[in-house]
């Protein structure tokens, strides 16, 4: 057997380019469906894991999927209807349930800037890589990938994107102080920035500050664009806070019973809808499952065609090597030895192709978070 292996290696080495090409073709044939399957499963699990982490979401009426994408993956859909802050204060009163407010819509370098409360980090089990949690309005913590991409460090000052370019009378973009960088969480939190809900309202133009009095001008006419501990007192909101907007409320009931009671409580609410993101996303994924099956079938068919082509190539090669088999015969080598030699050659080629295919799949798997980012 060892001699057959040695001979097989020699035979393969004698035609390096032909065999390398064959291995590449085979490897790609295996790698393509395998990678698609693995990545598909990965994203599906990622999606479901995020929804499983969030038992309930309360949002304004409208498409639940749009609200979920906005609340869990920060799709920054600014056309969503909002909930009044009062709904959050009501939800907070429920026993055995943690409620987290969420306001999306703002951005920094087109990355989502989320207004929330400190509970968000606790309930999402996010920890700080470096720095501190925001203590004052105007402070922000940034996701790990966000910090890397934008090269942000503690103490940096960032000015959020302006979404009111043509409305000169509204608040100008606010400057924020980076106080913390989050640990990588392999979720949408990695590519977002977080501020407290009051800061996000100021960014949205619901509150503003005035510069300290100067000799040149009436301070009431000069807006302050930096919110820090010393300027906090000069910032104020206009209107009733209880009507201020929220994109969604994330609800974390402690028990099944609390979840059921909460769902029942809001079932007939005319302003608010409450739903389980996991079941909504699973329902969405089931819509795609027939397409997945069609894609899987087409890939299996392609693999089958490639396998048939491979068998054809190998049988043609065996035919071409008839004189070689005759040589083995007249030299007295047994038929079993020749079969062993060809089987070993075939096995080595398949093994090499399999190793290449698995390497390609592993490489793509390692790139999955980046690919996810690109998507």
């Amino acid at each position, binding site marked *: 057997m060892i*001699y057959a292996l040695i001979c097989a290696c020699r*035979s393969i*080495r004698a035609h390096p380019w032909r065999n390398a090409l064959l291995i590449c073709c085979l490897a790609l044939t295996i790698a393509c469906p395998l990678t698609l399957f693995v990545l598909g499963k990965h994203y599906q699990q990622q999606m479901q894991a995020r929804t499983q982490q969030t038992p309930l979401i309360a949002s304004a009426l409208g498409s639940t999927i749009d609200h979920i994408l906005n609340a869990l993956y920060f799709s920054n859909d600014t056309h969503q209807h909002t909930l009044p802050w009062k709904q959050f204060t009501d939800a907070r009163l429920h026993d055995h349930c943690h409620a987290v407010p969420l306001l999306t819509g703002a951005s920094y370098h087109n990355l989502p800037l989320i207004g929330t409360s400190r509970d968000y980090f606790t309930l999402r089990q996010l920890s700080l890589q470096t720095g501190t949690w925001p203590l004052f309005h105007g402070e922000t913590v940034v996701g790990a990938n966000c910090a890397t991409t934008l090269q942000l460090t503690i103490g940096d000052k960032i000015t959020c994107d302006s979404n009111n370019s043509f409305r000169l009378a509204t608040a100008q973009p606010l400057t924020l102080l980076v106080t913390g960088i989050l640990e990588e969480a392999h979720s949408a939190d990695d590519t977002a920035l977080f501020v407290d809900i009051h800061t996000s309202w100021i960014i949205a133009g619901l509150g503003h500050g005035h510069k300290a009095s100067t000799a040149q001008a009436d301070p009431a006419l000069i807006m302050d664009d930096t919110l820090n501990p010393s300027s906090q007192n000069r910032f104020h909101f206009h209107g009733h806070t209880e009507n201020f907007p929220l994109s969604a409320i994330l609800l974390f009931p402690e028990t099944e019973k609390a979840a059921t009671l909460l769902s029942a409580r809001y079932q007939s609410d005319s302003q608010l809808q409450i739903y389980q993101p996991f079941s909504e996303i699973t329902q969405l994924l089931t819509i795609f499952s027939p397409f997945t099956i069609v894609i899987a079938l087409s890939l299996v068919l392609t693999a089958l065609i490639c396998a048939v082509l491979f068998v054809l190539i190998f049988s043609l090669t065996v035919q071409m090597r008839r004189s070689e088999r005759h040589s083995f015969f*007249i*030299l*007295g*080598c*047994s038929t079993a030895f020749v079969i062993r030699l060809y089987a070993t050659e075939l096995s080595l080629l398949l093994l090499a192709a399999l190793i290449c295919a698995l390497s390609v799949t592993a490489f793509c798997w390692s790139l999955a978070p980046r690919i996810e980012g690109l998507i």
Partner: protein
Amino acid sequence: MITARDLIFRYDTFQLSIPSLTIESGQCLALTGPSGSGKSTLAHILAGILPLQKGCINIGNTALHTLTEPQRRQFRKTTCGFMFQEFALLPWMTVQQNIVMPLASENAVTAPLLDRLHQLAQRCALTDLLGKKPQQLSTGEQQRAILCRALLHEPPYLIADEPTAHLDPQTAAEIRCLLLDECKRLHTTALIITHDHSHLADYDAHLSMLELTV
């Protein structure tokens, strides 16, 4: 000693009938005859490549006609050396790997065997060519390589089918001398098919197919 009695081999319209053939032990017998007279067929039958349809062949103590196909393969590999017109050298092996291949497939390559290979290669002026591929060798060098392969296991019997065919006179003479010297040295019983009538005196005996067949 090689003896054959009442050999009959038929293939399509061709028929080979040999009532009797004897090659004495240690004798180098030259076999001549016109093309198509059955010289190569006889060589293939004696090597156990073609199955015998009728008659009996005894090579030493082995009754070749009683052996099964796998046994005949084993016989070729261990007991009988042969040189055929087709060199049967594998292009993806070096000359050395080709020479030891029949024994290596039996895991029978030992240090003394490799020593013998190097001595034989030296005598055949192949030492520098052992690491080369067959296609890098001239026809004469390839002939020397298959001579090495035929004699490596010091077989008591050798069958050579036109070992000097396609060679220029000088190279043919070199190969012939080498073959006969090695057979003498190893006391090998040899049947050598040749068309070269001018050197029949170099062999111990000479037979024509016309004398052998009926």
